[in-house]
């Protein structure tokens, strides 16, 4: 019992020390996290969302034009517009905070991973019912998340390589769905842009004023941790979901249809864009304030290695995972991504005196 009393007494004393605890600093080095957050906002997030927003009208226009008179040229243009939008979305796929997190927008733009096959399931249901009411602008955005975005559009445009005729006659409703999705993406990306930029509640001000605390960010450190966590989680997603799961243990257990965007044959293009994007955000915000020069160089070298590897693939992932050479190179890419995971899980947060956020940011 004596121990108990001593512990209790000591912890009562300890509270006075708690309040004096210092903010983020490493060996006395002050890291200006507000500057990190603002650089990421100005040099990465806002330009990337602007580029996404710009890609939505051409997609919508291409969908309208194709569906007005379905032909090969129109389908080719529509697919190209889809690819362009997807390119710009992959740059932002990892971002979990800000206006993209409102109203399930992130999932409405792209539901992936889709382990339970919901996109196909809900799309089949929608097409079977062929009820124009489901596509009403007042109803469609409130319906199933699975059919509102890029994954559903990919199903419609690429699965079984449909001819333009598949979108006419009995297939006309398919084109109505294509148009509804394109219009929906236009609407969502427009709302995201407005929410970032406009009005007294513009989300950019939440970044600017993070150090004072607001309804979204407790302080600049919390915001920096969230930004860093998104980078780390995207690297983990690439490793786990974009590479390991389709690869399987061996050629026999390879599962190409687990890959992202396998229908459009752009699984590795997504990975390349993701890696470039993570590198760009790192360079915009975190790299300049890293204290240890060797660490900064090491992270840069790891990006260079992973990007060089992903640039070397000349065939789609689905065609590579069955042959020994392709598998060997994909496994090597996966290992290069794991090196980056390690940096972003361990060395980078440690250098910046930020919590890696494993247990503190997502609520359990």
């Amino acid at each position, binding site marked *: 019992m004596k*121990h*108990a009393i001593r*512990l*209790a007494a000591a912890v009562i004393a300890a509270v006075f020390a708690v309040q004096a605890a210092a903010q983020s600093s490493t060996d006395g080095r002050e890291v200006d996290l507000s500057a990190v957050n603002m650089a990421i906002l100005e040099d990465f997030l806002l330009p990337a969302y602007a580029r996404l927003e710009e890609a939505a009208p051409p997609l919508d226009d291409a969908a309208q034009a194709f569906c007005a008179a379905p032909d090969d040229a129109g389908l080719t243009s529509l697919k190209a517009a889809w690819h362009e939008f997807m390119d710009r979305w992959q740059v932002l796929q990892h971002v979990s905070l800000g206006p993209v997190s409102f109203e399930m927008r992130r999932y409405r733009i792209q539901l992936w991973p889709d382990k339970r096959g919901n996109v196909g399931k809900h799309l089949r249901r929608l097409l079977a019912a062929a009820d124009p009411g489901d596509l009403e602008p007042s109803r469609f955005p409130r319906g199933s998340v699975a059919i509102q975005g890029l994954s559903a559009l990919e199903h419609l445009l690429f699965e079984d390589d449909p001819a333009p005729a598949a979108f006419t006659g009995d297939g006309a409703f398919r084109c109505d769905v294509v148009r509804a999705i394109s219009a929906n993406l236009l609407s969502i990306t427009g709302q995201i842009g407005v929410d970032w930029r406009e009005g007294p509640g513009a989300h950019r001000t939440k970044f600017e004023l993070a150090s004072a605390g607001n309804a979204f960010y407790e302080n600049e450190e919390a915001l920096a941790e969230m930004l860093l966590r998104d980078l780390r989680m995207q*690297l983990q997603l690439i490793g786990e979901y974009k590479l390991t799961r389709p690869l399987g243990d061996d050629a026999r257990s390879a599962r190409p249809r687990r890959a992202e965007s396998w229908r459009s044959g752009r699984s590795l293009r997504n990975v390349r864009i993701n890696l470039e994007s993570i590198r760009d955000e790192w360079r915009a915000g975190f790299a300049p304030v890293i204290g240890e020069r060797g660490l900064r160089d090491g992270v840069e070298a790891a990006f260079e290695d992973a990007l060089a590897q992903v640039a070397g693939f000349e065939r789609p992932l689905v065609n590579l995972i069955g042959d020994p050479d392709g598998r060997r190179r994909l496994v090597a890419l996966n290992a290069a991504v794991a090196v980056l995971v390690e940096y972003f899980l361990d060395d980078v947060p440690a250098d910046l005196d930020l919590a890696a956020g*494993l247990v503190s940011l997502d609520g359990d």
Partner: protein
Amino acid sequence: METEVDDTRRGILRAALGCALLPLPGLAAATGSVNVAGCRVTRTGGYVLSLVDGASGVSRIDLELPGRGHGVLHHAGVGELLAFARRPGDFLVAADVSTGALKYLVQAARDRHYGGHGVFSGDGRWLFATENDFESGRGVIGVYDAEDCYRRVDEFDSGGTGPHELVRLPGQEVLAVANGGLRTHPDFPREILNVDSMRPNLAVLDAQNGRRLAVAEPPAALHQLSIRHLAASDDGRLCIGMQYQGPRDARPPLVAFSDGDSLEPVAPPPAVLDRMRNYCGSVAWLAAANRFAVSSPHEGLITLWSSESGFSGALDVRPDTSAICAEDGGRVLWAGGGEALQRVRHAGSVDMTSTSDGYFWDNHMIVM
């Protein structure tokens, strides 16, 4: 389609088919020093269930998991160490403590995902796990037979939405369930689908039939205060650690005591509440100090609480420390954060730290 088997999982399944026990060679039984167990994340992003020697940080078990684990549970009678998938995961794993081998891998029932925690009946026969019926959003407690390969034999209502941690009241077949109020779905990992309408509660259930004995809710104004973690004292007092899902600049109380019928929120001084960052990671009962410990990992803070006098102190540990557990009747507190295992003894501050290179402690741990 609903129960797709991953490659990693298939590898594990090969080692744990049916009820068969396939011991791996190697690990000697742990003797002497204190062992702590918990789920960890590896440096390259893998997930393991670990049993670690407290003093040295050396692993006795690092069993690969099919996904990220969360709560752990020791079935001392039969030498099994259990880990539950983190919400919204779908596996439950039992390891053989003496060999470190995987003994059972249990797949979540159809349309159920695990909440992350479980507890045994007093005799160790039945396992109760928090689960979510994700199509309806109904919280359930799955009942598993520990003597029959953890076959799922029953389920009953958890009394709310999104059950997370549950405890059994000492000496009674009564469960106290933290129904966090958060609705989740495996298609949207980590997304909370009902932040605006959530209604958490603490439900007290008869473990033998699932009958609801009592329910306590926070006041309506605090409906975004998710009730997630709890611990019971030896005489059945409950201390609840909560997390706030509302605006980040609000400062609601995050700790409450309960007798089952009502919740009594208690607040520390504002400066301490600020540092708790609207989040509690785990709760432990320190019998010897007659205090509950609550971790708040963002800034590496552990607060101490008395059911009589409320807030009674705090101590600093390293950031990202959520996992805490008591040893030696509550004279010693272990805390896992990052790669560090920290011991708090007598002095009220960390007096010893061991590290495991490349292994990061997740939310919870237990002393074995």
